[in-house]
């Protein structure tokens, strides 16, 4: 996907954030009443992939997914789809998605929650890449002196 919209960006960050991190960064204000449009529910979804990233599509397998939709007091609909079966995580992510759509709070929330999460996630990703890189084997062949 090229150039995700700002909302796609924060939704993808929220979807990857574990509950402990969400709870640490986000405390719902007591007077904010969210309406549950779709209560958190867990189901299966089929993951599709392309062989080699560009080839023919195939079904990689099924994964567990929890989804939730809430409406904020300002009337914004917040959607969340998270991997696994943590309902609370899905609910928090949906609430944040709804709040982030309010232009008045967006900047604050982006810098307080989304950016720290994004930094953590990219750090974790590069650490994992580095770990994988250390096991990488470079094959090389000696050039035979034929010319």
């Amino acid at each position, binding site marked *: 996907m090229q150039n995700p919209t700002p909302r796609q960006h924060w939704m993808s960050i929220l979807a990857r954030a574990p509950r402990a991190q969400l709870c640490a960064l986000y405390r719902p204000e007591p007077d904010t009443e969210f309406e549950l*449009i779709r209560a958190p529910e867990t189901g299966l979804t089929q993951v599709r992939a392309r062989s080699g990233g560009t080839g023919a599509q195939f079904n990689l397998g099924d994964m567990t997914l929890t989804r939730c939709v809430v409406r904020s007091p300002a*009337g914004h609909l917040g959607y969340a789809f998270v991997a696994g079966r943590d309902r609370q995580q899905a609910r928090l992510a949906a609430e944040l998605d709804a709040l982030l759509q309010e232009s008045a709070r967006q900047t604050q929330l982006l810098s307080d929650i989304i950016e720290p999460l994004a930094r953590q996630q990219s750090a974790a990703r590069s650490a994992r890449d580095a770990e994988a890189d250390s096991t990488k084997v470079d094959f090389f062949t000696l050039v035979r002196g034929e010319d």
Partner: protein
Amino acid sequence: MSSDTLIRGFDDSVHDSQQCFRQILRAMSEPGTQVQLCSPATPEGLAPASFALCQTLLDSDTRLWLSPEFDRPGIERNLRFHCGLSLTGQREEAHFALARQGELQTLEGFGRGSPEYPETGMTLLLEVSLEGPRSSHCLTLSGPGIDGERQIYVSGLTGPVLDELLNRQDSFPQGIDLMLIDQHQLICIPRTTRVSSCLSTAATEVR
């Protein structure tokens, strides 16, 4: 809040739809029995029992035909969101149809199943008024699931629907199943039920 906003569905989709399903099963197996169906909120213009019924019975494998009265953005959006169903404009394709009393001028075109697959016949959800003896039609039901006879009062059935009920063609097991809905109430008249008109309204029913 505009009329096409999303509203909340069942609080607990698994248990709430199981409870609704139990009620629908009872209404279907004991034709003429009134049961209650509830959903926390209802799209504007739709009866609560209709919305509960749709959330319980419809999913991506069922096609719903909406009558012009119900073919509105608010109802359509909420049904798509909560049931994941597909809507159809073709009567022949519909597994379920939703209409209001007085709207259906003909039942032509709705599927009645085939002799090999009678279960593919259409189920008609009809919003009517199920009031007491003063309403216009008193129907006597008998057949499977009914000990003797049972009487129900319905108003606003159009000629073709009444005709379908009273003069069922001898095409069993093919046919149309009818679900009558009034706010939270549901009464079912499956195709196995024999229906006749009471001799007259009101007067003869006073005991």
